[in-house]
């Protein structure tokens, strides 16, 4: 049974990894939506799922993810997670399970692993992680 479950997981990963390589538009274009503000407009989630190929969302939106997948199984839903910032708290998943997600490492944990670093300086306008913010010309 355990072997079967592991095999199923491996197959699921392969399917997920290949999902964007669609034969219908093998070399064409794809569209994506970043939705990681504190309150994204989900009113058109089904329509959004139909026309977008890739979503980047905060990781506590697992019900939203499921709805996207149910609408269009080939859509790829990616969890946002900041590489260089921290966040003071975690957020309950929207599935009512009681589990919690986070869009960056908790600051308490980050400070313990990053000797010599200062606390992030200012509340970010970036919605997901404190300490990051604003629009930067790059």
């Amino acid at each position, binding site marked *: 049974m355990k072997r079967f479950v592991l095999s199923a*997981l491996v197959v699921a990963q392969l399917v*997920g990894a290949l999902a*964007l*390589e669609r034969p219908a538009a*093998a*070399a*064409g*274009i794809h*569209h*994506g*939506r*970043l*939705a990681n*503000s504190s*309150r994204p*407009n989900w009113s058109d989630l089904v329509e*959004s799922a139909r*026309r977008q*190929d*890739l979503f980047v969302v905060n*990781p506590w939106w*697992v019900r939203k*993810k*499921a709805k996207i997948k149910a609408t269009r199984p080939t859509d*790829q839903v*990616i*969890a*946002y*997670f*900041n*590489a*260089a910032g*921290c966040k003071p708290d975690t957020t309950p998943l929207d599935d009512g399970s009681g*589990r919690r*997600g*986070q*869009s960056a*490492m*908790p600051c308490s*944990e980050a400070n313990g*692993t*990053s*000797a*010599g*670093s*200062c*606390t*992030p*300086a*200012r509340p970010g306008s970036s*919605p997901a*992680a404190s*300490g*990051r*913010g*604003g*629009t*930067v*010309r*790059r």
Partner: protein
Amino acid sequence: MNVGNPRYQRAWTADALHNWRFGFDGIFMDDVNMKCNCRTTPVEYPTDAAYQRAVTRFLANTSSRLVANGVARNRIFGNVGYWLSNVTKACRWNRYISMSEEHWTQFGSFAQQRHQITCAQQNGRWFYGRTEGSASHQRRLRYGQGMALLFTRGRAVIGAQDPTNDVWIAAYSQANRLGDPTGAAFRRANGTWRRNFRHGYVVVKPASKRAAITLDAGTRSPLVALPPTWTGCSSPVLSCRAGDA
């Protein structure tokens, strides 16, 4: 945070995996930057080159652990900040991750933008370009779409940089109707670039940041000039010299 710290990298990977295991297809790393997004120069990284080396170690170590735990490598997206400061150097991170640009076609030269989208699609990785704008910024978004159409190898994703709303413009629907390209993009004598597709073609005029998609049925989007845009700057802190901050 000190991205070059091995303890931070291990803890970061564990936290990222915790969230990925809620059933997501991949992980989007924000703030994979060519320069420290810091208020002051960090003690650990007195130069951009030093910070870039730390980010490279971060990407190598975290991505290998993510992949070892089942995350598809081409579904690890790094949002690369200050990419245009050294396009070629940043492109080396394609070895570890798919790459994302949140100011797609808004800054830099045509050659730099072409390099971005081309290098990001090497090694089976993906390019995800987002252009700032709402549905009222059709011209700007259409240019980002047009540039992506020129150089997509089938692993280019584009869209608007709007964290709240779903932004969809007519050009996106037109692009979906083009089908696969029938050849590579080519430069024409008048300075425009064109690429043919099974059901139409795209023409891009880099000098004025215009783009137009023409479908076989005759549907055509207008060529419109894009005004220059500029944005501000921010600077969170990594680690400070004594007396700084």
